[in-house]
């Protein structure tokens, strides 16, 4: 029986904009397992990003409960959530969100300076194949390279979970594949539980499990018997 990393019970999120209430999540029950690479698939507004943000400690649920291992995140305050993110979670976003005034190495050091058990910044960048770009600033790098720096920054703390929101969304397919390769390698080599959000159906083929979202609910869950390597995927 694999270890459960994330568990949610009846997780709901309502955005109250005054006149209309938007149900972004409606009663989601989900378990994610250690070492698993799962893909959350679904159209825009289906609730996958909302779930990811709650799992990552960026947002609170309106109702229901959520656990990271034995730690219940549901009612944690800002300080504890910050602590949780700092110690356990790595994020990768569609827009790389690098600090423009810091070089690749320094962007990674942002994390290694504060994490309890980090790898060296150089090692993280080596993992994403950017050894030759250590001292370059974001403006001096391509989109794919910037995203790989963002991944290096996310994994440098050796997080237990890596949460990726549309990591290839801003990239062309060739660069996107390279980024996915990196994610897969990290999942394989370090055993980091990885959640990837995408609305690109092709990416599902590299996951252990694919969770399909529609209207704030889990529509279906499928397990891949055989996984494809990213370079075999095309879109």
């Amino acid at each position, binding site marked *: 029986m694999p270890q459960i990393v994330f568990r949610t019970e009846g997780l709901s999120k309502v955005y109250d904009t005054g006149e209309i209430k938007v149900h972004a999540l409606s009663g989601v029950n989900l378990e994610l397992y250690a070492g698993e690479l799962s893909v959350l698939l679904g159209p825009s507004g289906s609730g996958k990003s909302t779930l990811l943000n709650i799992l990552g400690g960026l947002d609170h649920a309106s109702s229901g409960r959520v656990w990271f291992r034995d730690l219940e995140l549901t009612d944690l305050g800002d300080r504890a959530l910050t602590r949780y993110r700092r110690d356990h979670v790595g*994020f990768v976003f569609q827009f790389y969100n690098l*600090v423009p005034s810091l070089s690749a190495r320094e962007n990674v050091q942002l994390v290694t300076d504060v994490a309890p058990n980090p790898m060296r910044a150089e090692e993280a960048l080596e993992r994403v194949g950017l050894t030759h770009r250590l001292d370059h600033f974001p403006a001096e790098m391509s989109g794919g390279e910037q995203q790989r720096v963002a991944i290096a920054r996310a994994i440098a703390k050796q997080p237990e979970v890596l949460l990726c929101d549309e990591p290839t969304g801003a990239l062309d397919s060739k660069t996107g594949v390279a980024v996915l390769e990196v994610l897969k390698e990290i999942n394989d080599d370090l055993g980091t539980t990885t959640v990837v959000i995408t609305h690109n159906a092709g990416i599902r083929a590299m996951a252990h499990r694919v969770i399909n979202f529609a209207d704030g609910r889990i529509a279906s869950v499928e397990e891949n018997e055989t996984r494809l390597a990213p370079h075999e995927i095309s879109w």
Partner: protein
Amino acid sequence: MQAIDIKLLRDFQRLWVQGLAIAVVLACGVAILLTAFGMHTALTDTREAYYERNRFAEVFADARRAPDRLMTEITEIPGVTSAEARVQGFAVLDLPGRTEVAMGQMLSWPRADDPLLNVPILRGGVPPGRAGEVMVTTAFAEANGFEIGDVFHANLNGQRRALTITATALSPEFIYTIGPGALMPDNEGFGIIWMPEAEMEAAFDMAGAFNHVALRLTADAAPEDVKEALDLLLDPYGGQGAYGRDQQMSDAFVSAEIDQLRGMAVVVPPIFFAISAFLVGMVMSRIVALDRAEIGLLKALGYSDVEISLHYLLLAALIAVLGVTLGWAGGTILARGMASQYAEFFDFPYLIFRVPLWVYAMSGLAALITTMAGALRAALMAARLAPAVAMQPPAPPVFRKTLADRVMTAIRLKQTSIMVLRSLIRWPIRSALTALGLGAATASVIASGFMFDALTRIIDLAFNQSFRQDAMIMFAEDVPETALADVANLPGVMQVEAMQFHAATLRNGPREKRISIEVRPDGAELSRVIGASGLPIDPPPGGILLSDRLAEQLEVAVGEVLEVEFMTGRRETHELVVAGLVEQYFGLGAYVEIGYLDRLFRRSPQVSVANVLVDPAQLPALHAALQDTPMLSGLIEMNENRASFEETISENVVVVNTVYAAIAILITVGVAYNGARIQMSERARELASLRILGFTRGEVSQVLVGETMLLALIAQPVGWLLGAWIAHALTTSFTSDLYAIPLVLEPASFAWASLVVLTASFASVMIVRRRIDRMDLVAVMKTRE
């Protein structure tokens, strides 16, 4: 209203706090320009009109006793349009209900009630015509509560006379009235008194003679030639040297005030305008950067480059309008306050203290133009954006490795600190201007604090070290030294020292200066002269001590020989060696030893003033005795002098310090708040990233607060230098023959200035910091740059 105008108003509404912070800085500039320039114009124009209408003289001269027939020759001096002679003198007054003696400057009133020059304006009553009738200055009457018909007594050349007030008047000669030896006007203790000519002649033994003459000149006259001719004519009659308006006490003070106002109007507002232009530029550039996509869209929709630039210029104009409105309101209040202060010190006949409307227009226009100039770059930036490019996200700002990076790496700085430092280096001009703006705030506090320190120094030097006598008893004319024994016998007098004053012209080659030489005994203890070393010094026999400003004007150094032409005694010219320099802030002093001077004049020892120490308990008895002592022309009480000086100064210092501290805080808030807001907006993603990576609010705040506070710290030395420079400029601009202000820079003033600015910076950035708490991490990360 067009949609784009609605956008303009909405943008302004959204930005109103930032807009207000800039508008307030701009308002300071407008208010000061309005007040200083408006008051300058009002004072200049009114003085001009007053002088013209009331025929204020241009050349003046005093003599011992010149015959009336000399007037024919004086009138015939080329360039003279009219000349008027009079008799004048000082008298000790005994005012009802006042224990202390008062002093009056007595002037003769022409028989036909038709003064040619310096025509007084009657405020009530009829001019004095009969014996025992007088006209007094309105200020003197008001201060003492006199009505027409009231009576007071005067000791006129040893004769006690009852005088009835028949009229009160203002005179262009006495816009600013200050008694001999006084530092501040004292309307209660000193007044101008006009008495019928015949009475004056009798009282001062001047039948058929005069001792003061005033001239008005033609437009093309050469004043120097006129003065020379006048001196030549008066020389045999004890002429004391002709002088122009620049040495006429009242006009010299009014001119000094006008010069100060001009200095203020020229120096201060541009600083505020420059800071607000910079702030507007900074904010507008940021808005254009944020509005990138909208600009692209507007262009795609068919708006022209000009319309778009205009749109952003108008946004700046709205800020300017707000600033000008606030500035006009503030300036009007400030001008009113200043006018009431002038009303206290200056006696003008008309209500002049209104800022002309065109000055409002001018200050508003100046503010509008500078603000627009500040926004111009941003507006052009908007115009130049190609629509297709504008709708793309902007490229991330380019950072490059510099030498500084190697240093930062070597000293193993935290990444957050590196972010702060790199951003400073990446935008050096913006950083420098921000630091300069905050430095200007520090400087403005220093410049006001310095005044206080300088005045403290002046008071200390004047009253604690130099003028240590309780009072100066002035004789109507020089008396033998034996009179000191009589003074010593007066009630309450504990110590007496002699002093003489001699009008003289000092010459060093072509440089010359007409001044009054103070002659004093060796080792005088009551009235001392403080040398450059800070210790009391005495003029040696054969030598003369000069105040440093006088030596500077004469371009003479210690050890050099100065030609001294005395207007008194035998009216001889002697050569004296400059024996030393004296630190002095009132007047242009020159000092000679009393024994040496009497030998030089080949006469027995004389006294013109007795400095005395008085037992305070016996003061009333002393005053009573002095009112009946012949040969006295007045008494100057140093304590009263000091008290009124300190009171006036401390009132002004509190007001000025408060105003400057407020201005400094406004500048600081304007610069720091806007800087932090822009930083916050530019860095929103970066700061949100840090939060997501697990940095606490406190740690993230360090980046925001760190940059502002680092700039504020860098600004301090800049502000100190700037403040010292402004203080220096102020001492130079305030320095006249009448007074000087020493450059006293106390470390405490610098510390205080920095404390004010650093605290205000911190408060401003903490207001912005609250936005970090409210930051929606998800939303920030989801949106494209």
